[in-house]
């Protein structure tokens, strides 16, 4: 009896969380598509969805829909990457930034912006991406390669060495980016805006690329949910429970790098989501990665989609960088949850 109820309770809780977040996702995407300076009514939008042609078609489809989808995918991808890395390193400060992805991507993007490397043709031919995005993708992955290489002793990558190496390599790439900006002042503004993150340039090509990268990588991360739970017990324990910590760490670092570099390449650097979203959701769902990872994806998507909608519609025609807005709204909420947990609420 006890076991029946324990298992059922877990399932029920998981279903409620996931369904709630799915419904919220739908409304977040609907809001993102429907809300904008070209005002139109939800009814009109639904009419359009079911009957076809409408005057809103162009704005909806060419601009708002890909933008909504892209912000949703990036939010989900960053949250899953952050959640995995926090688990792998048992470090609440971990997210893809500490592996050097952002700094490397920033450098790659800055270099492409400043030097106009390769022209547009190469990048577009490769992935349907601009050359800046491609530069960011390569830069991000290159940075992680450096970080892991410096932190490696034989086959083993130690956590503390990895964190330190990540900080060091990040600093190096940030310095290089600053150097480029000073030497090429004409491109400074563009680089700065890129590093603040934005979905202004969203397109269906970018959505397709992001979906092809982010969805499979996120799904693969979720395959590692149970090993991730066990890794929280520490390396020696995990080994004796049938989880190879070296292999698991390597696989997850690879997957999260792909995820984060993919996200950053289409959106620029969006902070906060990867670090704090998983914490926020952990406070609500508990620490089990089998539930936490899917919820992180959905929650991250909802959060960034809403943040981006606000970012573009608060002070039209001015756009607030989405990273600024996500921090402004997310941090107070996160701090509130943290306080509540400290006072003995559901942790």
């Amino acid at each position: 009896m006890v076991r029946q109820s324990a298992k059922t309770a877990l399932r029920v809780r998981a279903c409620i969380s996931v369904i709630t977040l799915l419904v919220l996702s739908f409304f977040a995407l609907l809001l993102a598509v429907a809300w904008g300076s070209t005002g139109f009514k939800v009814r009109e939008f639904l009419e359009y969805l079911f009957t076809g042609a409408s005057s809103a078609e162009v704005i909806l489809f060419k601009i708002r829909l890909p933008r909504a989808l892209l912000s949703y995918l990036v939010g989900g991808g960053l949250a899953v990457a952050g959640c995995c890395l926090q688990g792998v390193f048992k470090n609440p400060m971990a997210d893809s930034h500490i592996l050097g992805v952002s700094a490397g991507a920033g450098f790659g993007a800055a270099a492409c912006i400043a030097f106009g490397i390769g022209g547009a043709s190469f990048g577009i031919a490769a992935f349907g991406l601009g050359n800046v995005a491609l530069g960011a993708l390569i830069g991000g992955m290159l940075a992680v390669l450096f970080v892991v290489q410096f932190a490696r002793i034989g086959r083993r990558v130690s956590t503390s060495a990895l964190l330190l190496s990540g900080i060091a390599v990040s600093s190096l790439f940030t310095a290089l980016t600053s150097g480029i900006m000073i030497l090429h002042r004409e491109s400074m503004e563009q680089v700065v805006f890129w590093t603040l993150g934005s979905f202004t340039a969203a397109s269906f090509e970018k959505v397709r690329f992001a979906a092809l990268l982010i969805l499979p990588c996120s799904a693969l991360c979720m395959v590692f949910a149970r090993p991730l739970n066990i890794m929280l017990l520490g390396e020696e324990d995990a080994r004796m429970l049938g989880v190879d910590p070296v292999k698991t760490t390597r696989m997850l670092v690879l997957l999260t790098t792909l995820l984060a570099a993919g996200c950053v390449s289409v959106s620029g650097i969006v902070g906060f989501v990867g670090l704090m979203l998983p914490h926020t959701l952990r406070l609500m769902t508990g620490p089990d990665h089998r539930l936490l990872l899917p919820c992180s994806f959905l929650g991250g998507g909802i959060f960034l989609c809403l943040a981006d909608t606000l970012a573009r519609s608060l002070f039209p025609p001015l756009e607030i960088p989405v990273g600024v807005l996500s921090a402004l709204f997310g941090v107070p909420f996160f701090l509130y949850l943290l306080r509540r947990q400290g006072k003995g609420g559901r942790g």
Partner: protein
Amino acid sequence: MSSRLTVENLSFFYGNRPILKNVSLAVAPGELVSILGHNGSGKTTLLRCISGYLKPKEGAVRIGEDAVSSLSSKALARRMALVPQSPVMEFDFTVRDIVLMGRNPHLKRFSGETETDYAAADAALVRTGMDALADRSVLTLSGGEWQRTIIARAICQKSELMLLDEPVASLDIKHQIEILRLVRSLCRESGVSALCVMHDVNLSAHYSDQILLLKQGEALACGAPGSVITAPLLAEAYGIEAEVRTEQGHPYMIPRYD
């Protein structure tokens, strides 16, 4: 009788510094074996060489007929469970969640826990007296309860050998007795073999079938408690003066304090 665990001429070095020298040991099915020795004598290192966490420089470790180094971590975990010295969990899993982690070596990557796994976890919880606390967050447990949770996890793993690294070091005497009785009953009733790093000489003498006494990485003596817990051997191993009596049918050591 074939032994469940065989350690043959095992040596281990940190750099050039020898930690273990030529240690041999055989553990039979259902046997409870203790490893005793002074701090830094290599007890935990020996356990880690046996678990394959450290690679010995020389010598062999076999579980049944198989070399430990040849097994994948999953295959190894099906045959060997570890109760570590001071396990840490900072996330608020329930007691049952932690115990169920012991089923991981028996599960395929894509499949979830089945009724069999839940039943094994429940049996382990009952065995350790933790069934009433099954749905409590592990962050709220006392030291004794947490230790019993970890032992329940090891039981749930259903492996033939259990390695315990100072399982009673941080517990009060009531819980020390409880835990060691439990381990002994696992050996007697379920045929599990247990290899236990210990600090308390008298507890080891009472509960063990066999004791391995280490001194600076070398096996000073190995055998039944009566042959190992003797005044001259204790003097050599720990550098203390002690009187050894027989209490409750087992050797009992009283050290000279002043």
